[in-house]
């Protein structure tokens, strides 16, 4: 692995009495695809919100390429090259597919022409170039998810945070989607995927981090992580391994 791209140190977020992310240390290297797994309510989405600047952490530190970016607002993080998608897709419903992607592209350019070019390139990459004039509100979920990725890509990110992009896709949609992400990664974009479709993550990720109740419980190569007892318990219930 090469350069350290993202580092969280002791990052913590509480909501009321619940500690959603609990003093978490995470290191992401350039050009990796890291799978972030964990059962419902483990704190994955909160962690994404912290990294993307949508939420400020209570304590802890966030670095991008060694630079302290703790507490930077979301739009600054995007301009710095950290793009994210939302678990529940949030298309800009009243805009067309192209316009959605152009909003992302405008993070790095003022020129409408450049933005259009970048947006079209990103839409092409995810296979939406036939639908540029379609209103985002009338897309299928599969297409919405692609749009969400394209929009993030159009902002020319260095780090892409994908939040459950594959949930709800049917098997026919799944494999092309994985191919798209591989393609994106080959072009130099580091990716963190939060995913419930574990087999997809196993195919895709070079490294897996498992969190449960806001803490990291396992980390390593996909095969070894998924057979670890802690992970099986976290997913199937505390006494599954015994019964």
């Amino acid at each position: 692995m090469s350069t350290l791209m993202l580092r969280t140190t002791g990052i913590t977020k509480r909501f009321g009495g619940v500690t959603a992310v609990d003093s978490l240390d995470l290191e992401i290297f350039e050009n990796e695809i890291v799978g972030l797994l964990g059962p419902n309510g483990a704190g994955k989405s909160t962690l994404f919100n912290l990294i993307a600047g949508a939420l400020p952490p209570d304590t802890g530190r966030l670095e991008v390429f060694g630079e302290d970016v703790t507490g930077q607002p979301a739009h600054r993080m995007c301009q710095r090259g950290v793009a994210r998608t939302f678990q529940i897709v949030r298309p800009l419903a009243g805009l067309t597919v192209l316009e959605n992607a152009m909003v992302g592209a405008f993070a790095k350019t003022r020129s409408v022409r450049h933005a259009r070019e970048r947006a079209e390139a990103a839409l092409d990459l995810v296979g939406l170039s036939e639908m540029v004039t379609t209103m985002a509100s009338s897309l299928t979920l599969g297409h919405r998810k692609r749009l969400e990725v394209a929009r993030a890509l159009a902002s020319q990110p260095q780090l892409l945070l994908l939040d459950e992009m594959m949930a709800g896709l049917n098997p026919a949609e799944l494999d092309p989607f994985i191919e798209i992400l591989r393609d994106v990664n080959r072009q130099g974009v580091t990716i963190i995927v939060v995913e419930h479709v574990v087999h997809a993550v196993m195919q895709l990720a070079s490294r897996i981090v498992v969190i449960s109740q806001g803490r990291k419980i396992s980390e390593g190569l996909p095969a070894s992580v998924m057979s670890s007892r802690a992970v099986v318990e976290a997913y199937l219930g505390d006494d599954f391994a015994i019964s």
Partner: protein
Amino acid sequence: MSQQIVNRSSGPIDPMVRSRPLPKHSLLIGFGVVAIALLAFVSSSAPVFYGHMIVMTLIYAALATSWNIIGGFAGQLSLGHAAFFGLGAYTSSILFVDFGISPWIGLLIALLGGATLGLLIGIPTFRLRGPYFALATLALGIILLNVAVHFRELTGGHVGISLPPTEGWGTMTFLNRWQYVVIAGGYLLVCLLISGIILSNRFGYQLAAVREDEEAARALGVNATRVKLLAGTLSGGLAAGIGTIYAQYILFLTPDSVLGTAVSIEIIVLAIVGGSGKLYGPLLGAVLLIPAGQLVLREFGGALPGLHTLVYGVIVIIVILLFPRGIWGMLTDTAALINRRRKHS
């Protein structure tokens, strides 16, 4: 690195694929100038009633178009837009009556004043979401109305301000109506041009993103606070400018006539009925509703006062229930549907 994504772009853009062709600004100017000339000609020879109708339609169209920048493009429901309109009207009128400053300079000062007010209000209120922003702007309108009532020495209180009928271009005061058509029409054209330019630039895309989903917009690198402030500043400034023109046309101001809540509501009604967020929506709303209101008022105003506002209210209810995207939105939706059908068959 991610530069490569761009390099995959496949040559020149197919013009058919463009989702939003660049607004033809030059075409807009051309059409606008011809339309204004035509309307000016008509108003110089038509009966007074129709001349008045044309000027009022232009003034309200400009006002609704200015509201559209913050209310439509940015999706922030401002219920106090009369505050800017009235501020502009009072500013230039006071400068003219008390200090002899030409309304043209007054217009510029009004623009600046409205923009400043828009900015100052935006800083605290844009934090408010949903109905709270609407309520705060509503309160702002009422505050300004009462300021005008209270500071009698400056504003004449309830009695208002009468402007001297000294005719001439320098004083922006005319006995005929065609000059007002030119001025108000020109101003409307400027408002439309600015709106068109906003829509076809990054700013417009970012405003639309904020309107659709502020959190998603922020995640896409949009500084939501900044674009909303800029929209509020522009919107407030333009609304104040049209206030000056209105004052010079009517030559008489009272707090209720330019700062009243009814004015704010009328602006919103025009924009929403026509289609808020669309470039020509508010214009369409004004063109449909203002003449209709004036005609009903003339025909039935004596016998049935209130009928014209009743018609307004019923139209608002019907549009909200049946065409929530406004008449312009309904028309473009229908056009798109017909287009698609044609393609399929």
